[in-house]
Each structure stands twice: as C-alpha cells, then as structure tokens.
C-alpha cells in the first residue's frame, strides 16, 4: 500500500489534491482512499489530508500513521506542525519552498527532504496554486500515477473550470511531474510529537493562562495583516475589546501594536476602529500614512 500525507493551510488545496491523487490512481486500476483530518475549519489554519492506494480494496478507516511520502504545501508549517512524524524508513518529505533543500534539511533532521519551488513553477505556468505542482512532483518521485492519469483526474474533479484554467493547471502538473527536485538529508531523529495529556488537577478542561499551548495562529493569515497609524489612534481600545485572540498589545493601558504571532487577520479591529487608524496591509509592508505603504524595515517590534 502507498500512503501519502498532505500538509497545507485551509484554502491551499491539500484536501483537493489528496482526492485528485486518489482519482488518478483509481483510473490506473488501484483501490484508493482520500480523506482530510478536520481541525479548526478556517482558511489559513493547518490542514492535514491523506491518500492511500493499494492493489486490493482498502478497508481500514484511520489516519495514516507511517506515510511513504509527506507533501508540505506551505513552508511556514514546518515550525508549527510535526510534518516528519511517523515517516516510514525510505520515505521522503516534499516541501514547496523557495528555500534551498539543505537549509530545509537543517530544520527536518533525519529524513530525506525534497524541495521544489512550486509557487514559482505555478506562476510560470500562468496559475496561482502550488498544490497542483506539488501533486505532479510527488507522483513524479513515486513514479506513479502517470501524468495523463493525473491530468484526467484533475479535469474530472474540477469539471466546472474553463478550458483555459484547465490548460494552465495541466502545465503546472507537468512542470511539477518533470521538475528536477533538489534533495538533501541531515542526520538526526525524525521528529515525533506526542499529544499533550489534559492536566488531571484541572477538571473540566480548564486551561490556565501560563499553560496555554497557544497555537501560533498568526500563520492563519492569508496575505493581509492589520497595521496602524498611531497619530490617528485615540486609544479608545475598542480593538482590544473586540480582538478575539488578545493580539492587541498594550502598555499602561495604551495601544502599542499587534501580536502578529497570534493575529489571525480577522479584521475585527479594522471594523471596530472609530478613526480608521487601522488598515489591512499586505504582509511585509508597513503603513506610513492613510493608504500609504512602505516595505518593512528590520527590527519591527512586534513582527
């Protein structure tokens, strides 16, 4: 049996690709299974999905524990999710990243790391979605299913796409399938993270402030973050009241900025601000005047 684990963020198409891969294998006479693992169902939140393929019917119904291959659609997940957990000996982790394979291998010691800049290849093909490139790439490494089967499966799954969009995605699939993947491996143990056990002394799932296994929900933002023009801020702290993630930072009851590690980019602060001092800006840019942006300077206090 072949078992693949997909890591992405909500909206990046990890679940869709797990299904297209299964569909392609099905078209080549394999028995298959594709399923996601649902967590916080929100765009930007970490998503895990699985694909299985076998020569005989698949009856098991549980998560893949020891995958042959792991596909990581978003490199920002590497510090957030144990992507190498349970990887089978001889298996590999395929990461979509502009970063070099050897640099990625430093962060994923003990496993074979393959790297492709799927986002760049997708743009070259005329598309936006790295997931299709990674689908092509993982099939290319495994040697199956065939590129034609992947393309047929894609067209069948996304039957409502225009012929132009399908053509772009076919190109992206092929680019991934034929891509020369960079490869590296560093010695070390494959990371396995045990789930935390709820504390016996805190009945009722009470979570103390200091114990909070606070997920870095800042990774859930999808391209935009809040920014402030402090000269327009009247320090009413309505943003502090409305922020669902306690990501408004204060000092002596005065607004000082955002905790971008936890801000999910929900924009409630923008809506709550009575003086329009807060705006959403693209990641990596800073607000210098109303609607005026500048590339981020180093050493930003709360970045």
């Amino acid at each position, binding site marked *: 049996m072949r078992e693949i684990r997909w890591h992405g963020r909500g909206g990046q198409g990890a679940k869709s690709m797990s299904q297209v891969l299964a569909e392609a294998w099905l078209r080549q006479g394999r028995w298959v299974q594709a399923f996601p693992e649902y967590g916080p169902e929100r765009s930007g939140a970490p998503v895990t999905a699985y694909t299985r393929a076998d020569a005989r019917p698949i009856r098991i119904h549980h998560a893949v524990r020891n995958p042959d291959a792991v596909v990581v659609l978003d490199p920002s997940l590497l510090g957030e999710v144990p992507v190498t957990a349970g990887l089978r000996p001889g298996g590999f982790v395929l990461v979509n990243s502009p970063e070099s394979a050897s640099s990625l291998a430093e962060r994923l010691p003990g496993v074979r790391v393959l790297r492709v800049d799927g986002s760049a290849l997708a743009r070259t093909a005329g598309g936006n979605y790295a997931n299709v490139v990674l689908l092509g790439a993982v099939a290319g490494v495994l040697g199956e299913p065939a590129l034609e089967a992947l393309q047929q499966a894609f067209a069948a799954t996304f039957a409502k796409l225009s012929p132009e969009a399908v053509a772009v995605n076919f190109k992206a699939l092929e680019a991934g399938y034929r891509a020369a993947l960079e490869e590296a491996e560093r010695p070390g143990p494959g990371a396995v993270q045990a789930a935390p056990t709820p504390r016996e002394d805190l009945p009722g*799932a009470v979570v103390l402030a200091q114990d909070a296994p606070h997920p870095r929900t800042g990774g859930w933002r999808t391209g935009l973050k809040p920014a402030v023009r402090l000269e327009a801020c009247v320090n009413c702290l309505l943003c502090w009241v409305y922020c669902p993630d306690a990501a408004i930072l204060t000092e002596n009851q005065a607004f000082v900025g955002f905790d971008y590690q936890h801000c999910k980019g929900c924009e409630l602060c923008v809506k709550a601000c009575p003086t329009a001092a807060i705006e959403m800006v693209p990641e990596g840019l800073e607000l210098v005047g109303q609607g005026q942006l500048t590339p981020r300077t180093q050493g930003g206090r709360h970045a």
Partner: protein
Amino acid sequence: MLEAPALSLLTGGEAVAVAVRQIDPDVFPVYPITPQTPIIQSFAQMVADGQARTEIINVESEHSAMSAAAAAALAGARTLTATSSQGLALMVEVVYIAASLRAPVVMAVGNRALSGPINIHADHSDAMLARDTGWVQLFAENAQEAYDLMLLAPRLAEHPEVRLPVMVGLDGFTITHSAEPVALLGDAKVQAWVGEYRHPYPLLDTANPVTVGPFAMPDSYFELRYQLQEALERVPGVLEALCRGYARLSGREYAAFESYRLEDAERALVVMGSAAGTAKEAIDRLREQGEKVGLLKLRLFRPFPAQALREALAHVPHVAVLDRALSLGSFPPLYAEVCAALYGSPTRLQSYAGGLGGREIYTEDLMRLFGELAELPAGPTRYVGLRR
C-alpha cells in the same frame, strides 16, 4: 436561633425549597415547569421575604437556566436550580456541558413523563434522558429523603474528588405535591454543614485568568471524557463518607441504596423513588404471611453502584426490577443496569415496568408481583397495571 419544630408538614416541593433556603445559594436560575413549579414558587417567596440572599435569575427557557447555572457555578457562585420533564429535555444539551465543565450545580428534578402524549405525572423517563450526561443522579423515596438528599448534594457536587453536578429526583406529584411530615435541620446547622463555596479557578478571578470550555481535538477529547468517568467512579466513596457525617448531624442514615428485609429474602424487588415505600408495605404484609421477600431501594443511579448491588443481592434467588420508564425497543433502563451488574450470578432476574405517566402502583400490584416471581418462566418485561 430557635431549632425548627420536630416535624413540619411539607410537600416534597416545599421540603426542597426549605433545603434551598437553608443552603442559601448565591444564584438560582430557573424556569418554572409542573410539577417543579412549587419549588421555585415557595423559594421565590422566601427570597422576597428576605429569608435568603440568593439571586434568582428568571430566564426565558430551561436551556438558558442551565446555561446560566453552569456559568454561575464556574464564576464562583454556589448555584442550584430545579426542573422537570420537558424542561430537562430542553436543557439537556447544556446538562452535558455543565458536567463536562465540571460545574458543581445542584438540581432538583420533579420526575415526570416525557411527551407525548403530553402528561405531567410521575415517571422516570426524564431522568433517564440525562443518565449519560456525567451528572450524579439521586432518587428520593419521600419528602424527607428529598430534603436530606438536597442537603447532601452540594457537599457531593463540590467535593474536590468529585466536582460534578448532582440531580436529586423526586417523583412528580406523588412526592412533589404530597404533604408529609419532614424533620428539618436548623438553619445554622445547615449553613455549617454546607460551608462556603469555593471554586479553585473562578471565572471572576480576573487576576488569574483561565480558559473554560475550549475546543478539544481528537488528541484530548477522549482523556477529558475519561476524567469524567473517573470522577464519577469516585462518587460512591465520597458519598459514603458524607453520609456518615450527615448521620451525625441529622440522626438519619443514608447510603447509595437501602436494603429492606433483604437479609434472608428469597425474592427481592429493586426499585427507585416513591414506589419503594409502597413496596415496603407489600413486603411487611407478605412477611406476616411467612413469605421471605425483601427490597433493594436504589438512591444512587449514576454512578451505578454495580459491585455493591451485586453483593447485596448475591444470596437472593429471584430478583424483580421495577422500572418507572421504558427504553423503547429494548429492556427498561434500571433492569438493564441490574442485569449487567448481576451478569454471571445465579440470581434469576425478571423485568417489570409500571407507573408510567402517573399510573398508580398499588400495594396489591407489588404483592402480586412477589407472588408470581418464583413461578415465572424466564421471559420478557412484564407490565404492572397496564390494560390490554
């Protein structure tokens, strides 16, 4: 302060209201429903007359009543409430949540049939609806027991080994609306008994903020449910110790169940609630005729004291279980529990159901039951008082 007179003539509902007044909880969110209404009616009068400092919250539904109750208990307030039948059915979603949040709420339940057809009378179907919620469930035989169990309940609910909500059931109308003599404790004695409510992580302690009611993924939900199971398993031991203390205080003995003329019994009945009193009467009459019959009256239904019950019935060849509820399509709930507890034992069990929707269970019915018990071939549930 004067001690209350030796015996007061009170309905079960009034006896519960007196217990609530003496406990003097901080918060009592409630929505009235027959036959629970006299509890809140009596208690609201007491609060209006300045006899309790409780904040009664008039909510718009039982769903809100339990939501407010769980939240108040977690905020750091001792919280009691009461309900019945459809009210419990409406609140049941939050009944689960109160247990999982380990909110030590105490709730009196005027046990009554569930619709439909609509019926307001005595029946245990409402309590059975909540048997898997994680609450401790106690059943009273009469007004005195309802009063005493209400005073035991906060100590049990708030005990650090337990920290679970507790339901005290009393049969609708048969007990809630029947006036019987009740021995009350003095107010000061009750206050000293219940002591001060302390929650270790009250929501209103803003200097030590906590998260309550978080989302639990597959990696932790199971452990949290298991914590509930373990807490319930600690209840019998804690209850036993509390009952010893309460006996010193009141002179009245309580336990998870009561055995009545069971020592040498050849035939026994297992029952909960008001029918247990009738059963004692039937047993006395049969004993006068030389029949070796006895009773096991169960007070603690959740957690189910399976091992103790098995030991108590080990020597009895024939045991009947009389349910005041059905589990439609299967064996009645109490019978199924007793059956599981006695699995592998040589005791022969027979299921009976009766008293649904307030149908009377007469002394003669139970005498007849004992009469046929030893002769019956093994068979399905038999129905007491059913016309067909």
